[in-house]
């Protein structure tokens, strides 16, 4: 499974653990996991296992941000490697998300 979801109901925090690839192949799972229903209060995107990522991943993250309330959203991106971090920074995501 390329996407594992864990929902902390107490905190209403949705954790998405991505697999090796974070690209168009996961778009349907991603949609079903967090873009379909009611938005959670906060999200944690774990990129620890990801070693390749393309622009569709960033598009999905932007859609998640819109779904979660834009400026009011609380999305943390954790465990990103240096290369992924560089990509996120070039795209200006360090200003839109909390990068750990």
């Amino acid at each position, binding site marked *: 499974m390329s996407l594992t979801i864990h929902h902390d109901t107490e905190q209403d925090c949705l954790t998405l653990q991505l697999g090796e690839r974070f690209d*168009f192949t996961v778009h349907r799972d991603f949609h079903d996991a967090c873009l379909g229903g009611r938005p959670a209060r906060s999200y944690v995107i774990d990129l620890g296992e990801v070693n390749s990522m*393309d*622009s*569709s991943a*960033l*598009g*999905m993250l932007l859609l998640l941000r819109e779904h979660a309330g834009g400026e009011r959203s609380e999305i943390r991106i954790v465990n990103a490697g240096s290369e992924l971090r560089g990509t996120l920074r*070039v*795209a*200006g995501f360090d200003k839109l998300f909390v990068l750990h």
Partner: protein
Amino acid sequence: MSAIPAPSFPRLPLGLSVSAVALLLCLVWQPAWLAPLAIAAVSAAWFVEQRRTPARVVTVLPPAQDSAPVREALEDVREALVEELGHASRELHQALDLLRDAVSELGGGFDGLSHKTGQQQSLLKQIIDGQKDGVSVQDFAARTSDLLEHFVGLIVQLSRDSLRIVYRIDGMAKEMDAVFGLLKNVNTIAEETNLLALNASIEAARAGEAGRGFSVVAGEIRNLASNSNQFNEQIGSHVERARTAMEQLRGLVGAMASQDLNMALSTKGGIDAMLAHVTESDARTSKVADQVVEINRGLGSDVSTTIRSLQFEDILSQLINQTRTRLVELQETTAECTRDIEELACTDVEAGALAEHAQRVRARLSMQREKARLRARGPALQNSMDAGEIELF
């Protein structure tokens, strides 16, 4: 000239007679204390005698007839001295000319150097100012970096919108599936209708003549069911094609959404590295330029110091001129004095004239000394190079 003391003949009898008297007294009357007294008396007498007669000086003059070689020798001495002094004076003059030429050339050279240093400095200033005003590589790299970020932002937005379309297509596909499911229901209805129509026509046949009309209706209904089935199949195939087309569209839009960002990332890395390099290089260049400006300033001040130092020519000229004057005067004095000495040495002169000549020589020398003294007091010579600044620029 030599003074020889004359032998003291008149003193001899007195000394002898006193000594004889003393000897006689000693022989005739001989107490022990008389001998030292006698010796004291003799000595006193001798001493008094000695003091009373002054030494007579006799001047021995060389004979006049032997004066020719002396005159010649003195003449030679005078000529040699005068000639040497003249040489020295001329050489000093020559040295002065050389000094003037050399100093003027040195001055010209240093003026040129100072001018060129100034030009160099102004050129350097232009370069530095140009660097500050113009579009720097740093600026260019920063703009490129901004552009790249903008470009990446556009790609990400495109991906987001593409995904949005994909999700819409997925929604539409679900609707299509629902239509498909409904069409199956319609199909079932048509089949059941067909079955009903079949049953109806069977019942109509059993009814015989009375059921003929009903049989026709049942046949029509069967036709309708069959038509409905055909329509259903057509709709189903259209919907299927629409689904295939949507699936293709989904693939296309999905490909649009999936852009490789590695190129942008590596380009960004390259730009960052370039920026760092340019910043470092700029800092180094400006540091070196500052150093060069400082060196140039030092050079200018060195040149001005050197030009100021060339004033030594003035001081040296004054000194040499003064020395030349001294030499010329010395030449005259030497000529006159040697001539006087020659007179003295070679002619037979009496004591009065001799004294007069000596007096003249002394007077001449003291006049010369007085002149030298006055000159030393005259317009003061510059002793130091440090006085006075020269402004070059």
